[in-house]
Structure formats: C-alpha cells, structure tokens
C-alpha cells in the first residue's frame, strides 16, 4: 500500500492484488472510490463468508457508514482482487453538505439505507440457511461438534403465524407445526387449507409465535424461502429476517444439544 496525498480531504492509495482495504467491524469513516482495478466485498457471519459484491472502476465503498453517521463500524470487508488504485474521500465536508440538502432527499436516502440494511441481513440468513442445507445433505455424524453454525434441531412445536404487513382489520392468523429450528430459520408445516386464509408465497414475510418446551415465549419474523406442497400439507422453509436479541438468546438456549435431557 502506498499513499500519495494530493489534497487534505481527497487522496489516493494503491493496493496490491489480495491486499485488504478494510475489515468488517473495523472503525473507519473514509469513503473509497475505485479508480483502477477491482475490489471484492464480503461479510463474515456465523463463520461463513458471504460474498456481497465485485466492484469495478467508478464504484464506491463506505457509503453506508456515511449515511449511518452514528455507527462507524464497517459492515463488510473489502479486498483488492487485482492491483488497485482508490481515491479516499474524507467525509467531513460531505457531511456538512448533506446536512443542508433538501429534507425530502434526506428522507429518501434514509429509507434507501434502511431497506439496504434489511436486505443485507436477509441475504446473510439466506446464505447461512443455504449452506446449512448443503451441510446436512453431506450428513455428518456429529453435527453439533463439527458444524456448530449449521445446527438445526428437529422438533414438533405448535405455533401460530400470520402475514406481516396485512391491514390490522384484515389480519388473520393460522396454526402450524414447527418441524425444525436453527439460529437462522425454521421449517413450518401447515395444512394446505390455510392457503385459503391468506396467500403463502415465496418472499412473503410472516410472523411466527410459539411457546418453547421450557415455557418461554418466542416470536420472530421471517421470509418464506421455500414451499413444498403435498395433498394436505404445505411445508414452509422460513429464514429469519428479524430476530430480536432477546429472542436470539432464548432460541440459542433451546438449541443447545443438552436441552432435551434437562
């Protein structure tokens, strides 16, 4: 890496192929624009590498931190995939300008940012679920020991679920049976006739509520990512999109392998 300082707020840096530009969870507020070369952006979640983007000349890195302002921790890592030159912008002047832009553009930027955060989170869970499925198919005798992050617990737990986003008056909930659960999602079997109450489509967000065997209530929101149907049962693969910290903890305890014996 070689710095060539041209201006106090904008300067250029060079990275060799394979060099890390920044790391997830690092503190940093600078914005980067790729002037030459290419950059790979990825996130690591539950020990799994989640590719985010392959960026080329003209692409920007670090815009999320800029709009988040309060949080200055990088949400992803970036690495040069070839010899790369980037322009580094210090955000101070830009932040001052941003404060003065029209309120309506600010609202649009804020909504855009929130949507991106939500989609990134969903993508994380989806990739983990996907890897979990392939890990299970390559059957491991000690799943907990070797593939801790992939652990999925078989269960039979009744629950209620409903579509998120339905108007309050029209909100309908239905019952189903949870067949397995993991930190990233669950499988929910429901009677096919439930589909007459509200549509069960891939991509729909549902809210699931249940009581765990230890008496603790658990609720989470997730997206339907898979549906298999037979004559009477629709089996829904659900990936969590919103799991509050409290719920995460409760679920974590429930998934501990020793819990059946307690």
């Amino acid at each position, binding site marked *: 890496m070689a710095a060539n300082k041209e201006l106090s707020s904008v300067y250029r840096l060079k990275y060799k192929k394979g060099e890390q530009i920044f790391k997830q969870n690092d503190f940093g507020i600078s914005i980067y624009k790729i002037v030459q070369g290419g950059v790979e952006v990825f996130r690591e979640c539950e020990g799994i590498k989640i590719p985010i983007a392959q960026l080329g000349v003209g692409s920007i890195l670090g*815009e999320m931190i800029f709009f988040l302002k309060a949080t200055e921790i990088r949400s992803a890592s970036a690495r040069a995939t070839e010899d790369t030159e980037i322009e580094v912008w210090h955000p101070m002047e830009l932040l001052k300008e941003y404060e003065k832009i029209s309120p309506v553009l600010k609202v*649009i930027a804020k909504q*855009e940012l929130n949507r991106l955060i939500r*989609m990134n989170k969903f*993508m994380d869970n*989806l990739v983990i679920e996907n890897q979990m499925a392939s890990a299970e198919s390559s059957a491991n005798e000690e799943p907990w020991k070797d593939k801790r992050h992939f652990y999925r617990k078989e269960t039979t737990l009744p629950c209620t679920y409903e579509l998120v986003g*339905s*108007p309050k008056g*029209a909100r309908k909930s239905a019952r189903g049976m949870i067949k397995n659960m993991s930190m990233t999602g669950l499988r929910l079997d429901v009677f096919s006739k439930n589909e007459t109450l509200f549509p069960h489509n891939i*991509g729909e967000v549902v809210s699931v509520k249940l009581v765990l065997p230890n008496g603790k209530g658990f609720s989470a929101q997730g997206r339907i990512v898979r549906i298999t149907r037979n004559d009477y049962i629709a089996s829904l693969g659900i990936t969590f999109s919103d799991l509050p910290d409290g719920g995460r903890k409760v679920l974590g305890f429930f998934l501990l392998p020793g819990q059946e014996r307690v």
Partner: protein
Amino acid sequence: MSVDTSLLECVASETVYQDGAVIIEEGSKGDWLYVILEGLAKVKKRTSKGMVIIDTLKEGDVFGEIAFLEGETVSRSATVVAAEGPVRLGILDKDLLTRQYSEMSPMLRALMKSLAIKLRETTSRICSTLVSLD
C-alpha cells in the same frame, strides 16, 4: 407510520391503484417517484421460478427511487403492485427533485447513487439465491 411532512409537501399529484394493479413494471423505463399515502404495495421480481416478493411497502414509504437515483438510462429494478385493497399514491414533484439532486456535489450524488446500486444488486442476489434453494 405516517407520511413525512417533507414528502407530503413534495407531492405533485395523487392517484389510486386498485388491488392487484401494476404501478411499476420491472424492466420498463421511467423514473417517477411515488409515496404511499394509504394502503399497501408489494415489490416483486421476476425469477426463473416465477415472481418472488421482495418487500411490502406501507404508508409513508417511497418507491421508484432506485431508477431516479441511478439516472434515466436504467430500467425499473422491480415490479410494484397494489396489494390488499386499493392504494392511494402521491407522485412526487420530479422536476423539483431532479433540480435538488443535480445541485448536490458530484461526490454526494455518487454516494446516494451507490446506495441505489447496492440495493438493486442485493435484491438481485437474493432472488438468485432463492431460486437456487430448491
């Protein structure tokens, strides 16, 4: 959720779409921005296994912003459909927004544009992952 005042002040006209009506079609040209004043809309994307729902939008949510922020040359990244009853929309004053957007410094504009590009790419990646799940 209520509609932000600055959005209401920017509404140039209003329109109503009946349940199931397509407001924006994926792949079409256009960079109008809308805000939902009442009702719900679903955001969908075409995949090799049919339409996939990406998001549900509610009162106060703006949509159509990706094509606007990225520039007129790009096409609509997703389809938006009125859901669960009629939806009342405000069409935002595009001339005003375009002027305000072009008055921003190229750097700040690049940051806004980058958010839109990332959102478009992430939703595409979600769709291809969903398709590969079965």
